[in-house]
């Protein structure tokens, strides 16, 4: 039961979910409002394309809200949302990996000009890593090197150090053993440190 008289934004996630299950649209909106920024940020940093990140974020929330009745309260609500968001991003990256052949130019293109044209066509869709934020030099550089990490390292480092999620929650989100999550985060930090070393000189 939710305590009466308190504005919805002061309720815990679990309480808002209960309200949503009673069919209250306000509660649905509150859940989206709470998680739109972290979910969009995570997905954007995974797929690096604003339009696509919007689509995948929308897909995430539609999935979450339409299945609100099947949400199991023994999980943290945030873990459930991030799990679905991460799955959406990873699925997209896998599909894109399958299309990698055409990324470097169509296999059917024979002349160098044709190869260049088909390759450009695709890279036009990619947003420059620095377009979306007037970041500091370090911030911008970090965004770029994060983008070069393996997807599983990327999710781990973003959830841990950008979102401040605990190791346990990350393990739950990614369905990985705790030890694996720790290893991924150490390796990711090592790779980032090495990649950013030149900035310290």
């Amino acid at each position: 039961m939710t305590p009466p008289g308190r504005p919805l934004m002061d309720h815990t996630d679990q309480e808002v979910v209960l309200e949503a299950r009673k069919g209250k649209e306000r509660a649905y909106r509150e859940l989206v409002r709470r998680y739109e920024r972290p979910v969009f940020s995570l997905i954007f940093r995974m797929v690096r394309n604003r339009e696509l990140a919007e689509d995948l974020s929308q897909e995430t929330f539609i999935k979450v809200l339409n299945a609100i009745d099947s949400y199991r309260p023994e999980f943290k609500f945030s873990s459930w949302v991030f799990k679905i968001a991460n799955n959406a991003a990873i699925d997209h990256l896998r599909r894109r990996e399958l299309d990698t052949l055409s990324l470097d130019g169509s296999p059917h293109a024979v002349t160098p000009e044709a190869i260049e044209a088909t390759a450009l066509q695709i890279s036009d869709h990619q947003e420059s890593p620095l377009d979306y934020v007037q970041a500091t030099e370090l911030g911008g550089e970090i965004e770029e090197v994060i983008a070069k990490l393996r997807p599983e390292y990327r999710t781990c480092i973003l959830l841990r150090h950008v979102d401040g999620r605990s190791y346990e929650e990350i393990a739950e989100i990614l369905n990985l053993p705790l030890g694996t999550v720790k290893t991924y985060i150490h390796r990711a930090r090592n790779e980032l440190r090495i990649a950013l070393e030149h900035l310290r000189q």
Partner: protein
Amino acid sequence: MRTTRPHLSADELDAVHETALPADIRTHLADCAACFEMVRTDQDLVAALKRLPHLDPSPGFVDRVMARVVIPAYGIRTWPQRILASRRSLATAASWTVVIGGAMMASVLWSLANRDLLMGWGDQLLTEGTRLFWLGFRSTAAALTEQPWYQELRIIVTSPGRLAAVLAGLSVAFGSGVLAFRHLVAIPARAVRDANW
């Protein structure tokens, strides 16, 4: 003075971000330039990661999501609440109550008014049932004694040694059958991953 403890492990490096450092690590960091430099760059990195901004989706995101979400009309858990949710559900529930309650009442009244007829039907059913049961039993027994293997079976059953051997054989067969069945219907020990989403 140099410390004798080894360089920081990955877990210890991690602890640098979480908690106050134990004395031995502090001493080591004061003495070991390599670990000190690693901790410093790691701390800078984590601080920079924390400063990365959360990004906003374009305005109207919530509305675009809500346009594609179906909020169930029965978003209410218990069935009394579902019945009371709208006039229509209340009317439906009332109609069903009238139909089912009326039918039950009518059948009770009819039974009370026609007790003799019902008793007659009951007696007739009982007599017929008993007759059919004995008829079936007798014909089965007759068919059995006419089988060619009936005499052999009689011999086995009347000799205690043979009977014991047959019973032992049957028990073994039954036991292995039960074991095989248990194995077939056993629940897998490992949970199915991602079964829910």
